[in-house]
């Protein structure tokens, strides 16, 4: 592995998550194994729609590594380019690497290549080139994780004043977009961070919530999940309302046939809390 990669890995606290988008199962598994050997945590999907769902549902993805041609039945398919455009637009902080055995760099326009942080033609690779390219992917992933963590830590330290290492560790799994979207606004409005355990949840980590007293009432919002906001006459009452809301959303989302976007993200979060079965009552 490269010296740069070694240095970044040594300096890293947690392993970066790489989303691998590849239509062929054997290639998916090989790529996952190779990224794992380089200290990354691979998450695999087979097409661009699944990749978009995963990006929405799973905070903490540090790099997207995608095949450019994800639908071989269509000779000119370039779903990977379409995915790169989406990632650039919706998650500008997440780097994306594209590769293809079908297209050479000459087959892709400058405009198409511009959507990738790095692109290579795996068809013409020697063993040495394969290693160099994968090292490059891992290097980008570690760098992305490190930069994101630094920015999140700085914002949290600023927001919470006395942020504990424990809170920082949990918050590292939030996306930068969430940190930016929630934290600054709430900090300026006088919120403080608090850890709360949901009594009915399984053996899970406590939730990080923002708490603020305002105009005779208390506002509470779960960190990184702006849908989970409540108000109460006291902090105790607000937290009681939060537990009520969490249970209500769990029942409602669990009763839906299919979920996507913000609803899917919230469902995944609630599922991780290991709440009691909803019974799917309507």
């Amino acid at each position: 592995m490269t010296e740069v990669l070694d240095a970044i890995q040594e300096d890293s606290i947690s392993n970066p998550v790489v989303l691998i988008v590849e239509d062929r199962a054997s290639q998916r598994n090989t790529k996952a194994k190779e990224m794992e050997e380089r200290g990354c945590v691979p998450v695999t999907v087979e097409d661009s729609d699944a990749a978009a769902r995963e990006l929405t549902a799973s905070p903490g993805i540090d790099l997207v590594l995608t095949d450019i041609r994800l639908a071989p039945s269509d000779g000119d398919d370039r779903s990977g380019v379409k995915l790169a455009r989406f990632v650039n637009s919706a998650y500008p902080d997440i780097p994306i690497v594209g590769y293809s055995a079908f297209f050479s760099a000459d087959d892709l326009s400058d405009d198409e290549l511009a959507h990738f942080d790095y692109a290579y033609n795996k068809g013409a690779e020697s063993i040495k080139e394969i290693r160099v390219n994968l090292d490059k992917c891992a290097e980008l992933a570690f760098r992305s994780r490190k930069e994101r963590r630094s920015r999140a830590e700085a914002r949290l330290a600023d927001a919470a004043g006395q942020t504990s290492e424990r809170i920082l560790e949990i918050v590292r799994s939030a996306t930068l977009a969430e940190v930016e979207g929630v934290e600054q606004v709430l900090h300026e409005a006088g919120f403080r961070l608090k850890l709360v355990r949901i009594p009915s949840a399984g053996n899970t980590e406590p939730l990080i919530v923002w708490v603020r007293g305002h105009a005779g009432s208390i506002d509470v919002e779960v960190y990184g999940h702006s849908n989970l906001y409540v108000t109460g006459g006291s902090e105790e009452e607000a937290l009681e309302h939060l537990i009520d809301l969490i249970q209500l959303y769990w029942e409602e989302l669990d009763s839906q046939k299919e979920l996507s976007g913000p609803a899917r993200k919230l469902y995944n979060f609630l599922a991780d809390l290991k709440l009691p079965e909803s019974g799917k009552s309507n």
Partner: protein
Amino acid sequence: MEVSTREAERIFAKLKVKPRRSTHHVAGVVVIDGVGRLPVHYSHGRKGLQGRAAHMFRKSLHLEPDEFSVLKGCTMSRDEFVTIVGPRITSP
């Protein structure tokens, strides 16, 4: 900004959100093309949603303040809502 409980109920009805009720809240999901996409809720009570709660209610619908005013004012249909919000929340 304020949203009365009556207005929140009307918005749920207009967006065809099936309300689920608990002790303190009414919650549901905006379904677009058969897929649940936007979780949304409001709390019971005669006071309705005020200040931050009203702001968060609007935000959960992915609408800008002026767009939310039009929705609240009854002149935005569900189709118009889907046209505006759909591209903001759908994948490639």
